[in-house]
């Protein structure tokens, strides 16, 4: 049963890339709009050798990581405070929900005015969008820990740190990993939007340029590269998530 599902998935994947390769070659779709998959792959291979592209990957990677390193602890602390403190929660929760609902990209021009077209602007914007996601998830994580779980530990004389590490952490872990995974999607998107909107470096900048100049093989190669990086990160967190959430099945 499982074997079949994998086989069919693989077949669907092969069919997709096969169609992408054959349809332009056979003239079913316009190959100047959609270059064959094989050509895109070889373009990607060539691009990876170019110093300009390598530098762009490093810049984007650094932006993504720095923004992530700011947003995760900041959002977590704010989320925990909101979930744990009744007063602060009562005051700020509705306000944060209002801001959460606003599309963050409309603030991008402000970030450019404040930070200029720079590394800091990309990081600040991406961290800004991501912090909200982390904050909301962190608050939900804390609230998901059942009160009885804490009561049980207290009745057995558990210390505060034992309650934190033996009850809160394992109870929140599956949700926490899920939150990190989703936060990364927002984080990556934030960096890409900032780069495509206005920048002088990064993969987003290259992709925007290739699009404007109608360099379709390069454009698709860039899309492929970014997709691979995003999927790889997402899947590695998901493996952890599954490992620590077997008990959630019920």
């Amino acid at each position, binding site marked *: 049963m499982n074997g079949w599902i994998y086989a069919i998935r693989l077949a669907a994947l092969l069919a997709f890339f096969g169609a992408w390769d054959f349809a332009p070659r056979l003239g079913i779709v316009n190959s100047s709009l959609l270059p064959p998959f094989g050509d895109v792959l070889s373009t990607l291979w060539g691009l990876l050798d170019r110093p300009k592209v390598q530098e762009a990957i490093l810049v984007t990677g650094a932006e993504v990581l720095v923004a992530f390193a700011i947003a995760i602890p900041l959002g977590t602390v704010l989320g925990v405070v909101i979930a744990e403190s009744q007063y602060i929660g009562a005051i700020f929760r509705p306000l944060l929900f209002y801001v959460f609902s606003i599309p963050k990209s409309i603030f991008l021009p402000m970030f450019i005015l404040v930070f200029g077209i720079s590394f800091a602007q990309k990081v600040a914007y991406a961290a800004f969008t991501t912090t909200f996601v982390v904050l909301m998830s962190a608050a939900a994580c804390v609230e998901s820990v059942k009160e009885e779980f804490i009561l049980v530990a207290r*009745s057995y004389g558990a210390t505060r740190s034992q309650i934190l590490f033996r009850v809160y952490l394992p109870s929140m872990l599956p949700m926490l990993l899920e939150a990190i995974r989703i936060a990364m999607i927002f984080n990556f998107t934030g960096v890409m939007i900032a780069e495509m909107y206005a920048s002088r470096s990064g993969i987003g900048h290259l992709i925007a340029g290739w699009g404007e100049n109608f360099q379709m093989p390069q454009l698709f190669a860039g899309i492929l590269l970014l997709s691979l990086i995003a999927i790889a990160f997402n899947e590695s967190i998901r493996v952890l998530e599954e490992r620590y959430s077997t*008990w959630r099945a019920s």
Partner: protein
Amino acid sequence: MSVSSSADLALQTKGLSHIYQGVNGEVQALSDINIDVKAGKFIVIVGPSGCGKTSLLMMMAGLRRQTTGELLCLGQPMHEPDPQRVGVVFQEASLYPWLTAADNVAFPLSIRGDDKQRARQRALSMLALVGLEGFENRYPHELSGGMKQRVSIARGLAQDPPVLLMDEPFAALDEQTRMTMGHELLRIWSTTSKTVVFITHSLTEAVYLADEVHVMSARPGRLIDFVAIDLPRPRTYEIMATERFGMLRERIWQQIRKSH
């Protein structure tokens, strides 16, 4: 019959009351509770929902402080939870879902800092005592409701506390499982010689299990009656059909009804 000295008492409360801040000001949850629980007895506290039964148990467990009055457990006050004196079996679903049955039972021991191997041995023997041999590596979601409460009981017994407090442990179970579990609990109790304080709102369960039933009134919770259950032990299901059982049950019911 000798007058019981305080040395024979596992638990003793004197003029215990509990007042808390509600949305509309102070709420008196418990008022002037005086209970003497002799060591080795099976005590059941019954009362309508919201009468403060759980509050009382939380105080006995050291998880909540009384507003006034005194509470002694084995002659000493309970200012904070003391697992060496008191084990608590909570309402349904208090097992840690990320731990196996054995790890759940060993949890109190590992909190105490026991050697891992010894804790595991103890957990396995407690699981055997509650009839769950061979289930040590199952997770809670792989167990039935009755089995989960057996694990909870095993966890409550893990540190071998002289007093076991049970807060409506079978409330979420279906009627048949509930009866079986009550019977099982009596079997376990008879082999461990613990003092048990058991909270329920089922009168049948109360009469079936108890040496003594304490009846509480609705808010503010007060003790309004004390019924000694003089039915012979070991108790069997047939006892529920006897006239004496019916009379005792009826007396408790009348007290609860009057208090409304």
